[in-house]
């Protein structure tokens, strides 16, 4: 492999990883703080993509679709949390899996009824549909834009969690919810906010990815599995871990495809197994703890 090809593949891997991070960060947030194993997370990704297609096909603007879609996803997240997830905080993981898997089926059926089962393409905004040169290769500008957007979101998330009062409550809620409640903080509200934020992140990832992946039934499931891999590699509940985990998965997948094509589909899982052998709780997982 020539150096320039190697560099391009490096960029490809990082770009793929960043998008995975956007999905996985919401998953790890909800699991780490709320203690809820949310199988429906992939459905939110799919829903975001379908919203992006539906609005942009009618308005002609993907950016407008994102502007409308993110608040819509926040609302959907709130609704799902109040109606379903809120009843699960005290239950074991098995009940959570049952309910959230039921939600997956529900959302898939909704998608089929509302949007049909056809494949749809989403156009990139006119201003971003050119290609950029990388050495002797070309690269779609939209990919560069999504990568930048993902980096911005990652940095913002870090600032919120580490630097604000809300972030402090989130961290406190994660380690000891009873104590936080005893101190007079409304944990119910905190959890609802967090869940809808996670939903919006997954939805936003779907919207950004829609022009790259096209929109099709079942697109949420494959992303969900990879997101779980990212969360497990990064350490459950750690956003920073999810960031590095996602980059690792993106790079493993990209280079696996080029260097070991016969082994490509297993590459990601081999990396996960290797990480877990080295650090059984993931890259940045908390030391042995109750949750």
């Amino acid at each position, binding site marked *: 492999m020539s150096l320039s090809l190697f560099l391009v593949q490096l960029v490809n891997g990082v770009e793929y990883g960043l998008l995975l991070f956007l999905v996985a960060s919401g998953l790890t947030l909800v699991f780490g703080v709320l203690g809820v194993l949310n199988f429906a997370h992939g459905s939110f990704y799919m829903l975001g993509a379908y919203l992006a297609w539906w609005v942009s096909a009618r308005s002609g603007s993907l950016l407008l679709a994102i502007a409308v879609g993110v608040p819509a996803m926040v609302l959907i997240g709130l609704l799902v949390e109040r109606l379903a997830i809120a009843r699960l905080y005290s239950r074991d993981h098995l009940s959570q899996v049952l309910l959230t898997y039921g939600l997956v089926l529900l959302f898939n059926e909704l998608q089929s009824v509302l949007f049909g089962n056809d494949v749809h393409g989403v156009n990139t905004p006119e201003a971003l549909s050119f290609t950029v040169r990388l050495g*002797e290769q070309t690269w779609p500008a939209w990919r560069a834009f999504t990568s930048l957007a993902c980096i911005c979101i990652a940095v913002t998330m870090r600032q919120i969690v580490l630097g604000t009062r809300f972030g402090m409550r989130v961290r406190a809620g994660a380690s000891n919810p009873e104590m936080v409640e005893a101190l007079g903080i409304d944990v119910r509200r905190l959890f609802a906010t967090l869940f809808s934020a996670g939903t919006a992140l997954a939805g936003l990832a779907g919207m950004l990815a829609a022009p790259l992946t096209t929109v099709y039934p079942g697109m949420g499931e494959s992303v969900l599995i990879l997101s779980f891999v990212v969360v497990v590699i990064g350490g459950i509940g750690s956003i920073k871990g999810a960031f590095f985990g996602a980059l690792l998965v993106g790079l493993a997948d*990209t280079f696996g*495809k080029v260097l070991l094509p016969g082994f490509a589909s297993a590459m990601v899982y081999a990396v996960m197994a290797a990480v877990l052998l080295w650090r059984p709780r993931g890259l940045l997982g908390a030391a042995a703890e109750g949750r």
Partner: protein
Amino acid sequence: MTLSRRALLGAAACTSLLPRRLFAAGAAKLRIGLLLPYSGTYAALGHNITDAMKLAATEHGGKLGGREVEWVAVDDESDPAKAPANVNKLIAGEKVDILTGPVHSGVAMAMMQIVRQEEVLTVVTNAGAQAVTGTLCAPHVFRTSFSNWQTSYPCADVLLKAGQKKAVLMFWNYSFGQESMAAFKEGYAKGGGTIVKEIAVPFPSTEFQANLSEIASLKPDAVFVFFAGAGAAKFVKDYAAAGLKENIPLYGSGFLTEGVLGVQGAAAEGIKTTLHYADGLDNAANKKFRAAFKKATGRDADVYAVAGYDTVNVLAQALDKVKGDTGARKELIAALESARLDSPRGPFRFSKAHNPIQDVYLRQVKGGQEAVLGVALKDAEDPAAGCKMGK
């Protein structure tokens, strides 16, 4: 006392339990089983095949060989694991006279394992797996669609004629993709072309960027691919977005653009593919069929609908010859073997292995439409490797 409605219904139910042979062969309904997907990814294909079959039957006055047609449809869900149960339901449970379907090659393989042990006349209406009319071929099994070989072998010549002697192959790594590539390679090697690299993508992954970067660095004369449905939609868009379309021509079997042209939009413009049908084929049978299908269903006909339409038309010809007697197996099979159709796709007849002998067209996307550039291979006949029948 008058006869109550309940008693009448009861009596009617009883007669349906009587053994079928009590009826004269000409009077009993002809039961045609449909093993097709009506849910899931391939649901639209299943519906198009079914509706085209019903359209053809209506055009024959609802009767084939003098017997009224009765349809027995089962949703195969494109699930090979459920195929044996579904096939048995149609053959043993519903006692169909003729079994047709499926779309998915995996379901077709499972179906072949069973029907080879049975007597029932079987017509494969879509699945292109080589084995159906190859290693697993059987006297009572016919196919009205295509073999994978037919969709890809003729394309090799198209590249060679354009002077493109170095190609990269990229495909979804399952039987359809593998068979498609094998057929292309056979033709390409014969004409002196070399394959620079084969890129197998695990099915149903649609993350192509890494491989596209690789293709850009390999700089082949052309790229030949197999993808279908959502994968085809995404691949064609990615290929254009990566800036490859202007520099390295993209080819494929017709499934690369079939049914997804609208999604691909400008990214598909100029792509050349080979297939045994094109929507815009200029012949009377095609125009008549497309108009009738549109009127009956409100949808546009496609390559899948054509296979359904031809299935019933070719059955009608053969059943007329044996006066609707499906028990006369030998005569019925002989009648099918000698049947000739003026199909919407062009002239149609069965090969010795019971696969269609048909023209394969070279098509190019122009203005969002599939334009026919000409015939890529006239009377394309599948080599039927491994089929002992008729040799």
